[in-house]
């Protein structure tokens, strides 16, 4: 009886995201008749796309038991750098005047993302520094660098072709949404059907056991930070297209939303648990909340507070999962410590 109840709880916790998403959609549909319009639903998906790309990078990190808090700042710096090299000089554009071709611009942004990811991975694995602190420091450094670089100006004059990724549609669906779905499909396949993905789960689940199974955890962690940096640069390209201008504050504060989406979607903060389908659910849920609260004209101050509560709830659920899966675990641990301690 008790076992059944626990099983149901564990099942609900594992699939909680879809339950929550359904509740959220139904609630907002009842509260606002503008919620279930096709225009609004597309808006939710567009908001999901940049967030989702970021969540993919973060999920890879978290599966391996690491964080990349610097991801949002990479997005910010890559966006302003991309706008700078592609836009014309002088007022009102404030670009470099280089007017580089879009492909070269994207490449420069990618190189930036990979470079920061490489530094993160280097410091975490080779210098054996704590990943949380390393990426937090990197977040602050790159935010500062972005301010220095942009001098607070907003860069305009970005060519249409470059903006297509975040701006244009193919039929009824925006390109960014199609790209998002493809990206999640690829991420799903990578995590489930490749060596790389399996290694991440093993490293996040028990790094020492992964090591003893012939995996090089540090090499995988360096790769994870490269991917996270690259995804942030890609999201920057998308965000530039969506906004049409390069602004200093792009991505600011987004890291909380990214982590909340990943964790609500079941990607454990402690590593080794979660899947990309759940993570996509987390992205959709947060975007739904954003849209719903906006439609209901909730004041911006309240929205921040509600976001905070959502993050707390996400962490609470993650902690509870560990607790509900604990009974079997702790018993095994007792027997193990018993036999070793005697």
């Amino acid at each position: 009886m008790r076992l059944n109840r626990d099983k149901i709880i564990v099942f609900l916790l594992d699939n909680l995201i879809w339950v929550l998403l359904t509740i959220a959609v139904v609630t907002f549909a009842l509260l606002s008749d503008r919620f279930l319009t096709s225009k609004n639903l597309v808006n939710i998906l567009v908001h999901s796309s940049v967030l989702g790309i970021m969540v993919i990078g973060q999920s890879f990190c978290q599966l391996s038991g690491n964080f990349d808090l610097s991801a949002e700042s990479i997005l910010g710096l890559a966006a302003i750098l991309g706008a700078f090299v592609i836009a014309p000089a002088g007022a009102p554009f404030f670009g470099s005047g280089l007017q580089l071709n879009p492909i070269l611009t994207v490449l420069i942004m990618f190189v930036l993302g990979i470079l920061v990811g490489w530094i993160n991975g280097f410091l975490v694995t080779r210098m054996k520094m704590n990943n949380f602190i390393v990426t937090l420091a990197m977040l602050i450094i790159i935010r500062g660098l972005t301010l220095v670089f942009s001098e607070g100006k907003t860069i305009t004059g970005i060519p249409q072709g470059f903006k297509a990724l975040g701006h244009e549609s193919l039929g009824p669906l925006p390109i960014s949404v199609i790209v998002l779905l493809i990206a999640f499909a690829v991420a799903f396949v990578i995590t489930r059907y490749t060596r790389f993905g399996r290694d991440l789960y093993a490293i996040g689940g028990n790094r020492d056991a992964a090591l003893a199974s012939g995996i090089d955890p540090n090499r995988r962690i360096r790769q994870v930070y490269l991917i996270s940096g690259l995804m942030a640069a890609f999201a920057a390209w998308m965000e530039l297209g969506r906004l049409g201008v390069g602004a200093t504050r792009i991505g600011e504060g987004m890291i909380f939303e990214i982590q909340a989406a990943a964790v609500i979607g079941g990607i454990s903060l402690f590593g080794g648990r979660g899947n990309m389908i759940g993570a996509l659910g987390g992205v959709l849920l947060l975007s739904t909340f954003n849209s719903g609260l906006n439609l209901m004209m909730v004041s911006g101050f309240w929205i921040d507070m509600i976001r905070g509560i959502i993050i707390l709830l996400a962490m609470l659920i993650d902690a509870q999962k560990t607790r509900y899966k604990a009974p079997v675990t702790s018993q095994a641990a007792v027997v193990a410590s018993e036999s070793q301690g005697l």
Partner: protein
Amino acid sequence: MTEQTAPTEYIVEIKGISKNFPGVRALDQVDFNLLPGELRGLVGKNGAGKSTLMNVLTGIYPSDAGEIAIAGKPFSLMTTTISRQMGIACVHQHSQLIPPLSIAENVFCGNLPVNRIGFVDWNRIYRETDERLSRLGLAIDSRRKVEGLSVAERQIIEIAKALFADARVIILDEATAPLPKSEVEMLFNFVRRQREKGVAFIYISHYLEEIFDLCDTVTVMKDGKNLGDYKVANLTQADLIRLISGAEVERFKHTSNARDAVVMEIQDLTRPGSYSNLSLTFREGEIVGLTGLEGCGKDALARGLFGMEPLGSGRVSIKGNSYHASDTRQAFNQGVAYLPRDRHGYGIVGLRPIRENVTLPILADLVNPTQLLDTRKEINLVTKLTQKLNVKATSIEQPVLNLSGGNQQKVVFAKLTSTNPKLLLLDEPTQGVDVQAKVEIMKIIDQLSQEGAAVVVISEEIRELLDICDRIVVMFKGKLIAEFQTNSPDTTVERILHAVEGTVQAL
């Protein structure tokens, strides 16, 4: 031989204590009595119930049945608070003191006295600690930081701390394990001085010589039972060894599958601080036991061969080719697999299913040309291996954490055998598994040797080594000091244990 004394005098009187853990009867109707000022040894194999008994006495584990009386006062349910109040204290192998703080701060830890305005009264702390230490005959400055003390000094301070809290019974749990020989005597002298003041000590140790050196009496535990309390003066070390090892309930007897072909040859292998001048040969189908005390170099050798630690200088070859592994991947690729002693720490990824655990080292062989995993091939392989090793689980998708210790260990074996190893290094393969699973694991080891792998079993369980191995190699302080053929009539547990202690007996 059991001693009889008037019951009222006992400081500790344990009657009929039983304790069950899931699947294990850790204590079975144990009686244990202790007189004030007595120095009692407590010996037994790993898993015999020594630590469990002490944990029940100190209230860490509640007992399932039985009664404990301290100084004549009976308690049906012992708690850590009561046991502390009644003067029971425990000093562990690993110091519980806080290294960056001074001796005095450690003594007053959690109970720092304050002066009238609420600040910590440092003068009083140092003055009182100095006074108390000198009353115990210790001339040591209480302002010294614990991190600057030797290991023996730390343990003496821990005992002193317990005595300041009016301890009447002090448990020393493997207290000398981290100590150099010279410091052991220093600790023992201190213990002897305190017993003259009526403090009783319970000394848990695997070092039998020290039991004879320090204790008046010794209690032998086996399979959760108290086999008896003996006067040390009436025993020889050989008697005690016989009592501890006893006769196994169920035994697996291995017959040799050894062939002539050499799998690994080690010549003059030296790693400063771990081992020196090792020369060993492992043959196809051979099972070699490697034993010795903690820190003798046997674990370091295994981890070195598996690429988890530097191997050192010397010549090592596998099937005639020079062997070198700077990481675990290289070790697997050259046919060496290692079963870690700490199953939860290094063996399994508990959250993940059996399937993913088993195939971790061989994912490279399971990908198709597009670099995606061939899950059908994976499922077939894991199903085959888990059936062969008789892993009991609801499905191969069950998280390994939810399996019993024996089945978890079988999953680790399945993982290792998936790599088709030529040489298997097994570090305490039967640790933390029940008696039945032990036999099953020994059968697995036997089967692997039949299939031609060379197997090295690293263990301190001599009797098990005798049952499973073709020969047993003993290491002492980084050197090979003895080798025993298990089928020779001259090979006895006693002789091996003497070699383990560093004394090789001539026949």
